């Protein structure tokens, strides 16, 4: 993207859940960077580990989940091994979080003004009076009408879309460098969704805030993100610029995922579909996790796990793009084995 130092560096992140039946690996060898001012979209289907990645970064993994390996570095400082108290000062001040359901994010017993003021006085050198003034500015900025009156309202007095605007103000008001937004628009209606996306995009650009946008909605990613990471079964399957991943994906899973999105532009006799379902964490297949569903699978995929390698304009974890396997893959394509199901 740019030559500047990345703001967030995630390296070989591994998250495990010890259970009675053994340790489950929820995230395995996840690595990516986010540069200042950049929006990284993280997509995948439920259970792919996208929300888990966000939770690991903000230090809110639900126990018994734990970071079992790898590092997370924010602005040159390692944050994955910080004690709870220190992490609290980073959350809010350095990393803001936006979650799917605005009603559970806001405290129902406090007015939104009090919640904004509290966040700002905790993290910024402001007096309560100054913070209140700023809180009104923030509410105006996120598009809440009559902000100076609405500041003393309780969360239940706002509609869903307005509440999510308050949550955005709350996440941004301590001026963090990074926002982790986990399905910020999923609970909203389409017409409100568009408003909220436009707002997030504008604010991130104006304030130079970097964002990790976790969602299952490829449309939201295409509109908002600069780069995209596609996750499958706890690993990154493909990562690259948003245009390349959306229009010209390399990994067979991304191709299938993009193909199964119903188009608004025309009616299709049949939608492209990926057979089967994503494996459970307890039964991730050997080799490439996608191999049982992959139309272009060959022997190596069933044995050896691929890492991210250059593939076209993006990077994909797929043996099809390994030089040594190019020929084998070509043969597979020639024999038409399962080919063109993904067109």
């Amino acid at each position, binding site marked *: 993207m740019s030559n500047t130092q990345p703001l967030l560096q995630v390296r070989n992140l591994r998250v495990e859940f010890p259970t009675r039946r053994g340790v489950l690996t929820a995230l395995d060898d996840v690595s990516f960077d986010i540069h200042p001012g950049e929006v990284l979209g993280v997509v995948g*289907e*439920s259970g792919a580990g996208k929300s888990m990645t966000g939770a690991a970064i903000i230090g809110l993994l639900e126990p018994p989940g734990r970071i079992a390996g790898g590092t997370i570095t924010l602005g040159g400082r390692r944050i994955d091994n910080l004690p709870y108290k220190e992490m609290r000062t980073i959350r809010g001040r350095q990393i803001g979080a936006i979650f799917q359901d605005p009603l559970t994010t806001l405290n129902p017993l406090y007015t939104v003004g009090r919640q904004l003021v509290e966040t700002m006085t905790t993290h910024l050198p402001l007096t309560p009076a100054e913070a209140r003034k700023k809180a009104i500015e923030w509410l105006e900025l996120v598009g809440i009408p009559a902000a100076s009156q609405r500041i003393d309202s309780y969360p239940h007095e706002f*509609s869903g*879309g*307005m509440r999510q605007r308050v949550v955005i103000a709350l996440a941004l008001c301590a001026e963090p460098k990074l926002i982790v937004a986990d399905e910020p628009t999923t609970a909203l*209606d*389409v*017409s*409100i*969704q*568009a*408003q909220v*996306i*436009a707002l997030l995009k504008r604010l991130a650009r104006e304030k130079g805030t970097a964002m990790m946008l976790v969602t*299952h*909605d*490829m*449309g*939201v990613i*295409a*509109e908002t993100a600069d780069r995209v990471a596609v996750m499958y079964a706890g690993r990154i399957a493909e990562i690259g610029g*948003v*245009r390349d991943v*959306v*229009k010209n994906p390399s990994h067979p899973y991304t191709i*299938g*995922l993009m*193909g*199964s*999105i*119903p*188009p*608004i*532009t*025309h*009616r*299709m006799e*049949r*939608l*492209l*579909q*990926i*057979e089967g*379902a*994503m494996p459970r964490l307890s039964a991730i297949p050997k080799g490439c996790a996608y191999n049982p569903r992959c139309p272009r699978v060959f022997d190596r995929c069933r044995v050896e796990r691929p890492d991210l390698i250059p593939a076209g304009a993006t990077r994909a974890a797929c043996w099809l793009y390994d030089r040594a396997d190019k020929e084998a893959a070509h043969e597979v394509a020639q024999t038409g084995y399962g080919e063109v199901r993904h067109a």
Partner: protein
Amino acid sequence: MRDAAALGATPMLETQDVARYFDVSRPLLQRLIAREPKRLLRAVDGVSFAIPKGTTLSLVGESGCGKSTVARLVVGLYPPSRGSVIFDGQDLAQARADASQRRRMQMIFQDPYASLNPRWRVRDIIAEPIRAFGLVKDKAAVEARVGQLLTQVGLSPLDGQKFPHEFSGGQRQRISIARALSSNPEFLVCDEPTSALDVSVQAQILNLMKDLQKQLGLTYLFISHNLAVVRQISDRVGVMYLGRLVELAPAETLFRTPRMPYTRALMEAIPDLEMTGRQRIPVGGEVPSPINPPSGCPFHPRCPLANERCRAERPALIPARGTPEALVACHAVEEGRDGGPQVEPAAVGAVQGV
């Protein structure tokens, strides 16, 4: 006014000015003390449409527009407060009283986790309607029928022994479909059947539903908030806003030349996967409360074309000027203030080709 689709052959289902109100007043005593009037929530307020046999009508709209209430009215889970529902030429209340008619309609629900009994084996879940309607008598025949249904929806007959928790969301929705099909219905009401599913699984279920419609000649009432999904499955589409139909048109007409400003706004709001760099203009404001709907046209507070007449007078659903196959409830369209039918760039792909 009756839907034009109701003319000609008897439609599978027809609603005539059907409405459903809910009483959301405070308790009587509190109301008397505060001298408040009764408060009515008009969830559905006068909706007329018809579904010809073997076709799919979809209802789209945002949450609170009344689309799920229509689904429940149509299968008789709610009695209408006004108007009538006619199932294959017979009043719904009569049809519901007759088991041989009742088995002809079934419903598929949104949440495949909540709509299957977790304590029953899948084969019992699917066999329940068969037994309830006494369609097949002996045990072996029931078992064979269950196996056949499971195969039909893409599962294995052996899956009948398992419990719902052993299946993924998509597989559970297949079980719901098998259960709905078990009474040999002709009419299925599908209330957001793919909204809880991931996209790749959604594609599987939509393909399955299309296949089944072709094989069995089913008629669908399909409820969804997702316009792209609706485009894939519908013959005709109705757009709902605050309990009323604001546009009802053949799918191709609706997506190519949406007329009602609200329909246009909905299409504009869809994120652009083609990445044409098209600037979207999100519609302002939010859906008003159905307890206190705006006067006149319910969309006027958000509508860029609203004028005095829109604020005062409620528009009727009438054939649109320029595209008479579409019924539109909009004064601006009727008066030609909308500039006539315009091809919607978002819905036809401003730049062709992927």
